[in-house]
């Protein structure tokens, strides 16, 4: 079973603040799945190619020109900002990143 510190480590990497109760709750299912993954380690797969996706498509490129895709991407600045939690004019407000 994963220890408290193990769950805390993954939660930190995941940028999730968890309560102590959540850490206790998540330990068993995470342990089960991580164990299932460890079982895979016994498989010898040397020489097998990797498949990241199945279409066979690679490097879809287009000419470097500005193009308005019909209707879909036509959002105004106001519309795009409407969902932002905190804003001033057309800026999104966040806590200071660089110290004074």
């Amino acid at each position, binding site marked *: 079973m994963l220890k408290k510190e193990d*769950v805390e480590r*993954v*939660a930190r*990497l*995941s*940028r*999730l*603040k*968890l309560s102590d109760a*959540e850490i206790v*709750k*998540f330990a068993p*299912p*995470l342990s*089960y*799945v*991580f164990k*299932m*993954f460890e*079982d*895979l*380690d016994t*498989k010898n*797969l040397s020489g*097998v*190619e*990797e*498949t*990241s*996706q*199945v*279409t066979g*498509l690679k490097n*879809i490129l*287009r000419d470097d020109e500005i193009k308005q*895709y019909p*209707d*879909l*991407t*036509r*959002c*105004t600045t106001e*519309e*795009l900002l*409407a*969902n*932002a*939690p*905190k804003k001033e004019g057309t800026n*999104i*407000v*966040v*806590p*200071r*990143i660089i110290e004074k």
Partner: protein
Amino acid sequence: MKELFSLTIVRAAELLEKGEITSVELTETILERIGEIDRKFILAYLLVDKEGALKAARESDERRKNNQTRGKLDGIPIALKDLFCQKGVETTAASNILKGFIPCYDSAVVKKLKDAGVVILGKLNQDAFAHGSSTENSDFQVTRNPWDLTRVPGGSSGGSAAAVAADLCLGALGTDTGGSIRQPASMCGVVGLKPTYGRVSRYGVIAMASSLDVIGPICKSTEDAALMMEAMAGKDPLDATTLNTPVPEYSKEIGKDIKGLKIGWPKEYFTAGMDNDVDKIVRATLVKLESLGAEVIEISLPHTDMALATYYILQPAEVSSNLSRYDGIKYGYSVLRNKLPKNLEEVYFESRGEGFGDEAKRRIMIGTHVLSAGYYDAYYKKAMQLRTLVKKDFDEAFKKVDVIVTPVSPTPAFKIGEKVDDPIKMYLSDIYTVPANPAGVPAISCPAGFVEREGKELPVGVQIIGPMLGEPTILNVSNQLEKILNLDQKPSLSSKADEFSGDNS
């Protein structure tokens, strides 16, 4: 006409064309039924857009009057799983973290369907971010199976399947990452098509696991699914994974006889763990297909057991990447709405910690672990190698057979609450649907029979899997099966009115 809501899309299109009904009549009838039945029994809808739907219906009728109708889907009322962005309509993925989010654009497939003239009734419940197999992981409500209100509709597209089965829309959109169209379709007794990976644009659809996600229709009949697919499929410059191959007229590809068709029966799928009655239905289906002249051949998909392991690495890894965009800065749930923390990390940690539900957190953590330093090669890379083997299994099988027939789910619909506290049990219920996703092949769930549980009839579907871009063949087989089985039962909701007394969270 009293029961317009029970029409299929194809039949409604005929009546619209003949002028025997209008889209407004059709839409009003269904809206009325939603009002009477949905909140009381099913809880399929998260949002009903009455005004928007009636406006679209009026416009459709106007077009028809002026001989400008746009085809068979013009005026047909459908509904969307809440993963599909619809301009100006709240889109939440059934998650708290997106509550109140209003997209300023339509997803590509919604735009295509709107251009074809459909009427969009509203947004349907699902497991939050499509994480689940029962729709119980919705952050807002638990949808009930129309055949037995004490059971789940399956998931994650449970709202879509339940709404179609209960005649609360004529058709619906779903998404499928490991079975989320096929499994609820099977449990609700409707048709669900998971197309080939890359066949339908995913632009504007909230992403779960990008190398596995596909979009497809959930309908009352195979003909309806074929018709919807015609409008949905195709290349889209805004989704680089979409395929360039021309889109066939799927509705003309069905109705062909299947004499000589070779059907594969994978021995690895008929193992312990499957419900006896489900097993019987699948075997009886194969006999029916043989009676139509098809030949059933035993085949092997030797890496079937690896498919689930592959899936449970690739899927959470991609989930963790896709859900990293929910940071409390640009949209969605955020502690910034109430305070301005001292540093940015606090905004991330607290907004995500408070905003995401349990299942999203579990998957984000599993995926983050898999992708973290020191584990990538051991897990993610290995999963991509295993995926090659899973895909090769299908490639080899389709050299010998035209389609593969399997169960959809090991059991009929299970009870609400039965598996929700045991995520592992829930994960294992996807065992027959998962392999098609890493392999990218299309598959359809077609109603095949009923089993009786506690005095209620519960539907069971079979899965028909085809080779890449084999949609025409699997749609045709599904259509032939429908015709010979001729299952016309419907859930009887009104009589159940008194039976149900439960609390919904």
